[in-house]
């Protein structure tokens, strides 16, 4: 049996790159088969030679997604909503506009919807069909969010998933799962932790985690045994 990236209506790989791909090892992304490095290099050099892509643009793209976007952006949105009730209202009514007020917009965040956690409702975001995620406010998604187990289980067993993340949601609280099947991208507005009344907006932003904005965690104060 061929163990390469054969796609049925197969398209060959650039010359000089092996077509076999040993997948007998545990297929975790951390164990990168070195032939992938070679294949991607071969593809890039072909596209550069053809003038289809500019290598400096690739560097700029990578730099942008490694450094300019990430959950710190979303945390600033959340902290602003916690300290400014008018902003929170705008955020819940028009997520895209309110998030753009803080300077965050662009690809995979063109149509933002913020959903608010309350004592009665807990929100959880998933994309069962692929990996849709609000890039401008959270950056690129973690591997678990894109993984088969999360995509499969978040809709059928959200409480079980949340329990694995360390969150026990009381029975009387409604769990709302948002399956990102269209171009809306969801940001969970977590509950502001009790005892945070004296904290500045910046300090509040420092408490807000990526996981809390996906809905698999709550925001807690460090001294309350919270997560980093």
């Amino acid at each position, binding site marked *: 049996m061929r163990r390469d990236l054969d796609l049925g209506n197969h*398209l060959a790989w650039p010359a000089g790159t092996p077509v076999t791909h040993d997948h007998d090892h545990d297929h975790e992304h951390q164990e990168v088969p070195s032939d992938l490095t070679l294949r991607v290099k071969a593809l890039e050099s072909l596209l550069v*030679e*053809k*003038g*289809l892509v500019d290598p400096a643009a690739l560097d*700029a793209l990578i730099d942008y997604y490694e450094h300019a976007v990430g959950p710190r952006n979303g945390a600033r949105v959340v902290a602003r909503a916690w300290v400014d009730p008018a902003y929170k209202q705008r955020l819940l009514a028009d997520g895209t506009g309110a998030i753009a007020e803080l300077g965050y917009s662009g*690809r995979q965040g063109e149509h933002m919807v913020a959903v608010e956690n309350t004592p009665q409702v807990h929100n959880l975001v998933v994309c*069962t069909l692929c990996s849709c995620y609000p890039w401008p406010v959270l950056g690129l998604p973690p591997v678990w969010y894109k993984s*088969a187990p999360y995509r499969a289980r978040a809709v059928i067993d959200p409480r079980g998933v949340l329990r694995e993340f360390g969150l026990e949601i009381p029975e009387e609280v409604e769990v709302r799962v948002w399956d990102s099947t269209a*171009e809306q991208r969801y940001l969970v507005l977590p509950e502001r932790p009790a005892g945070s009344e004296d904290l500045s907006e910046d300090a509040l932003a420092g408490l807000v985690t990526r996981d809390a904005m996906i809905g698999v965690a709550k925001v807690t104060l460090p001294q309350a045994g919270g997560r980093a």
Partner: protein
Amino acid sequence: MNGVHDMGGMHGMGPIRRERDEPVFHAPWEARVFALRQAAGAWRRWNIDAGRYEIERIPAADYLRLSYYERWLASLVALLVKRGLVAPAEMERGHPAPGSPKATPPLTADTVRQKLSRRAPRRDTPVAPRFAVGERVRARNIHPIGHTRLPRYARGKLGTIARDHGVYVFPDTNAQFLGENPQHVYSVRFCARELWGELASPRDAVYIDMWDDYLERA
């Protein structure tokens, strides 16, 4: 298509594995694949729906075996050839065809940030909504063999229109370059018990974004 990518509600996928202090990319080749796809996409020879469809067409066993960016790589190679940016022989040899003209990349380092806002999928086309907020609807029981964003687990189920998001490009036709067919997208609330039966929590719900053509009057 009823592909393995449509995972909502499946069992047997194993535990959710989390990673502490996860990097944005786990290897340089992942970052290059990510960037190559964005940069090649700037030629606009395909759209986001066609890009997703190409990933869905990876045979099921391969789809599950490949890592996320391996899927991106496989589908990028397929798109480049199918959409005429690279000739099959060039992909085979790894070099441009002799005498072929050199193109000028549409995406350059100094235009990356401004071009990151691709043309948004919302349309101003005046299309009347078929449903109103609060209305009961049923997700159609359809099984298109092409691309669709109507997940299997919702088909035939009853829900309620929670919000009208406005008019958007219809992925089922756009993915196959058959036109944008703009129409309303709604957030539809499905009770967990309607989707998963009596053992589900009576309070819980799944909200799914659905195009007009996915819905019928209940």
